[in-house]
């Protein structure tokens, strides 16, 4: 089914109207609410972009590859769930740079959606 303009375009335009025309007319609690709405829409837009680029799958593959290297890739559940479990069970060395790297990859992938500016701090 063709349904144009696409969702990302609709959201981006709506967010721009909110920020450029609506929010400047508001004050106090309503302005704060408008900025929260713009923030939520920004996340939705970035999440759609990341999905189009296959970013979540790439991150999952990186986690899965790490678990395979550690011979811990034994269940059929989501890679992140497995990773959390084997860390909790102390089956990994917390100081291993490869583990730290995969944790960073996961965190940065989420920040690319939730708050891209935070990564530069």
């Amino acid at each position, binding site marked *: 089914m063709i349904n144009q303009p696409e969702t990302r375009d609709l959201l981006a335009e709506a967010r721009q109207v909110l920020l450029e025309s609506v929010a400047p007319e508001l004050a106090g609690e309503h302005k704060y609410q408008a900025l929260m709405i713009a923030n939520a829409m920004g996340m939705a837009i970035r999440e759609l972009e990341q999905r189009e680029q296959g970013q979540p799958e790439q991150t999952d593959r990186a986690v899965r590859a790490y678990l395979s290297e550690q011979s811990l890739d034994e269940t059929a559940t989501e890679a992140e769930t497995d990773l959390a479990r084997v860390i909790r069970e102390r089956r990994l060395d917390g100081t291993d740079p490869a583990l730290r790297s995969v944790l960073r990859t*996961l965190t940065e992938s989420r920040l690319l959606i939730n708050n891209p500016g935070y990564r530069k701090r």
Partner: protein
Amino acid sequence: MSALADTFSAFIVRQCGARAARVIEFDKLSGGAIQDNFGLTLDLEGGSRPGRQEFVVRQDAPSGVAESLSRPEEFRVLQAAFRAGVTAPEPLWLCEDPEVSGQVFYVMTRAAGSASPRKLVKADFSEEQRRNIVRRLGAELARLHTVRPPQASLVFLVMPDPDNPALSRVALYRRYLKEIGEPHPVLEWALNWLEDHAPEPGPTVLCHCDFRTGNYMMDSDELTAVLDWEFAAWSDPCEDLGWLCSRSWRFGADDREVGGLGDRQDLLDGYREVSGVDLDPATVSYWEVMALVRWAMIALQQARRHMSGEQRSLELALTGRMVAQMELDLLNQVQELEDGQ
């Protein structure tokens, strides 16, 4: 709103034996997802507090978070802190009868100034003013930490179990994470680190546990009141200092590690001047890592309140999306500690 003002006003008239009261001002104060705070200014005729009086009335909002105290418990903590000389609103009267206003509430004095973190962090203070503010924060904590268990009025505060506040926290957060049921590998990793690096516990003291920029009132450069006591607990003194220094509460002024205002050494100096105790900066750093995990846990719980339908809220939903920030800070901070920075 005005019916509520009359209800509170009548309660206060009874408490201070006044002949009558006129409501000069009544408004709902900002902040507090867990409680409703109302500013109430009265002109009281006769009684123990005659004349114009500014009060704050604090009562429960529809729902709370797992860790927080009830209003009567919070009132008793505030009494203990006030008696210990902490600059806090004076707790006046507790009303435990929900028939009066529909909720349990208490009345305290209203402090001057603002608690707005952004305003404070951006304020045009001199270096000396900043140092004095930060030393004052240390001094306030030192006074609070003179309150030690056992205290007959604070029996509801549980003692750390095991007998080590850090390990007690780790066990609690493991339980929270299990209850939340979402995979969070970074938090699991950080909890392991916290378990492996737990310092020797200091004395067990009354901690505020939410002592941060945004939770104390400032009138220009003068601290007028430490607020929001609902997370108070028996814990290690360094828990309060670590929370105040956490990266989460610098409001953009990342290089000023004490609440976006100043340096840690001034905080420790202010603490020592009142208590005579030299706290170990490394223990404070450890508790900063704990602070990041704790804030992540609170954020996850707040998101759950939204997701479960208990309290649908955009603000709570967005807080859930902040957890990755705490996770990145955890990865960076542990690395920095290990690198000896």
